[in-house]
């Protein structure tokens, strides 16, 4: 279990991270979501023992990694934001190099290298020089290099930055598979959909602080527990509006230009009823969109800014 208590990091007088409290249980996948410059990389540098916090402490299985970083390092896999590979070496040589650094050798090193190449889908390109790879392939190999020594916790810092959708999907599938296999994951990103897809628990960071944390559902509740249905229809009438209001007394029904907006609690599933009322009132619905709050809305709600600002 990884636990951070009151982490603070100052560079000279500038406080880049303050009062961070986090907890990762075994097998849990946790997301660290925030815009660029929020302090995510500094936080994970402290969590991974690369940087000493100015104050506060990080514990791995109740052992302070400030005092004993080796306790964590042996079991930690880290995927940095940069492509931390040797571009002049082949994929296989890169993996063999990092494997050797982690103490793998002989038959075990060869087997593990082949296993990882298979997992990241680069077996057929193993003897190619890394600098000839596409961005997505380099990112996959970057992940592979962190998995060689079978870590029990994986920290990934924006592993899908700057790659094509196909490679991104491949990487997300690979990470999802790792999580399903029981890997403890700390995943940082400013892509909320990635965090939503992969993580059970999410910490939202902004300006060096954790501004919210919880499960996806808990975080979305911070915005609202309502859903909004946008209806487009022919022959919208006031009779139809009144019928809807009568059927859903908790809802607010209003018309904006040619769109009817119905806001109501999330627990109701109203579409079938709405279509029935429309038929009774000779209204033909052309489209119906059910909108529930996203993590983007949560961030906007908490900071007044969009996540990618």
């Amino acid at each position: 279990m990884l636990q951070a208590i009151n982490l603070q990091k100052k560079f000279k007088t500038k406080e880049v991270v303050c009062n961070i409290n986090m907890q990762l249980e075994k097998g849990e996948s946790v997301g660290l979501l925030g815009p660029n410059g929020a302090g995510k990389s500094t936080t994970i540098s402290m969590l991974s023992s690369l940087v000493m916090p100015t104050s506060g402490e990080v514990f791995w299985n109740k052992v302070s990694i400030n005092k004993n970083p080796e306790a964590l390092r042996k079991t930690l896999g880290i995927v940095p934001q940069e492509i931390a590979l040797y571009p002049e070496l082949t994929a296989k040589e890169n993996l063999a190099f990092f494997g050797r650094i982690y103490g793998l050798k002989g038959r075990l090193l060869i087997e593990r290298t082949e296993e990882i190449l298979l997992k990241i889908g680069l077996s057929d390109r193993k003897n190619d020089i890394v600098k000839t790879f596409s961005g997505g392939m380099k990112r996959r190999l970057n992940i592979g290099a962190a998995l060689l020594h079978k870590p029990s916790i994986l920290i990934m810092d924006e592993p899908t930055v700057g790659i094509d959708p196909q490679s991104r999907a491949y990487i997300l599938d690979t990470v999802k598979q790792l999580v399903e296999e029981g890997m403890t994951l700390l995943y940082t990103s400013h892509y909320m959909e990635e965090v939503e897809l992969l993580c059970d628990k999410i910490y939202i960071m902004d300006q060096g602080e954790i501004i919210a944390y919880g499960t996806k559902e808990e975080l979305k509740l911070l915005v609202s527990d309502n859903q909004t249905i946008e209806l487009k229809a022919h022959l919208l009438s006031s009779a139809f509006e009144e019928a809807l209001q009568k059927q859903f007394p908790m809802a607010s029904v209003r018309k904006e230009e040619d769109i009817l907006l119905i806001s109501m609690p999330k627990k109701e599933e109203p579409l079938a009823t709405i279509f029935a009322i429309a038929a009774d009132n000779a209204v033909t619905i052309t489209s119906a969109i059910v909108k529930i709050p996203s993590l983007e809305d949560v961030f906007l709600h908490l900071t007044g800014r969009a996540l990618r600002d």
Partner: protein
Amino acid sequence: MKGIWLARLQNLKRKPLVLISMTVMTVIFAFVLSGGVGSSIPLLVATDHTSISQEVLESLQRKEDYTITVMTEEELQEVIKEKRDSIGILLNEKTYSVLADIDSDIVRKLSLEIESTYNELAFRGQVIAEAGASKWEQVEKGMNEEKAFLLKESSMDESQVFRYDGALQSLFGFMLYFVFYTISINVQFILEDKRTGVWNRLKLASISRFQLYFGHLSFSYIIGLFQMLLVILVFRFIIGTNMYGGLWKVVVISSFYVLLVMAFSLFIISLVKTVSQSSVIISLLAVAFAMIGGAYWPLEIVQSEGLLAMKWLSPIYYGMESFKRVTIYGETLTGVITYLSMMFFLAVLLLAVGITLLEKRTERYHSSE
């Protein structure tokens, strides 16, 4: 550390151009600018085939300073007429003639050497004639002892005199200049590894900072030393440059110089953020150091007091001066101990400052989002 070496070797195998080009350029520049020959002086010699003239010829042949071509007197006269820059020597039983168009230092030195050999032979003949061969052996023994003492005294005096050897000036100058690039480019791998995150990966794999720095720096050191040794050996044994019997001393000094340049490169990369910034600074400094350090021309011809005062800033100066002293001036390593100590202490200082600054900068990398 073994892993780092292996990765660096694989990298060198794929990108050997820097090492090859810097080595080849040193050889080409030094060879071309030294006139395409070694520093031994070509002499054309004709004798009258008497035992005395043959002995003088053998005495000249034993010296590393000259490349001797023996010919007949007629041939010698003919060649000297055609090639006016040649030096010819006509050795007879009791006299000799030096045939040269100009009265240079070389001609004067040569004349003195030949004259001294003739005198020695005449003296020997006289002693043997008067007191027999056994007496000569005693006298020769006594002379050798006295000579050793005189030689030592003369080398101390000669260190104050300006001596110039164009071949060695070019060789040492370009060797020290080009190896600066080879070492710096190799040390830049540290910066590149830090920038790409490989450094952090290695740290997280429980590789200690000492191992990381030592792995990279020792590789850069070996590559730099290898390049220098290669150039020295090519010039000494293939081109035939005369090193005045100071070959092994040159090798020892090279090992100190490489250490200093390696430490200096580390210091430079600790001040910059990117490899390209470091390359620009190193290029500028290498040229400046070569100029103020006496790599392109001997410092003895520089008049500006300001420029001469700046020579102490240049690592090339320490290397150049030590090389010249142990070769041209015939000094021992003890004679250049000041330069060697300066190189060593500067290297230690720059390594300490460089690593400290780099470590502080590394922390910044982690927070650069």
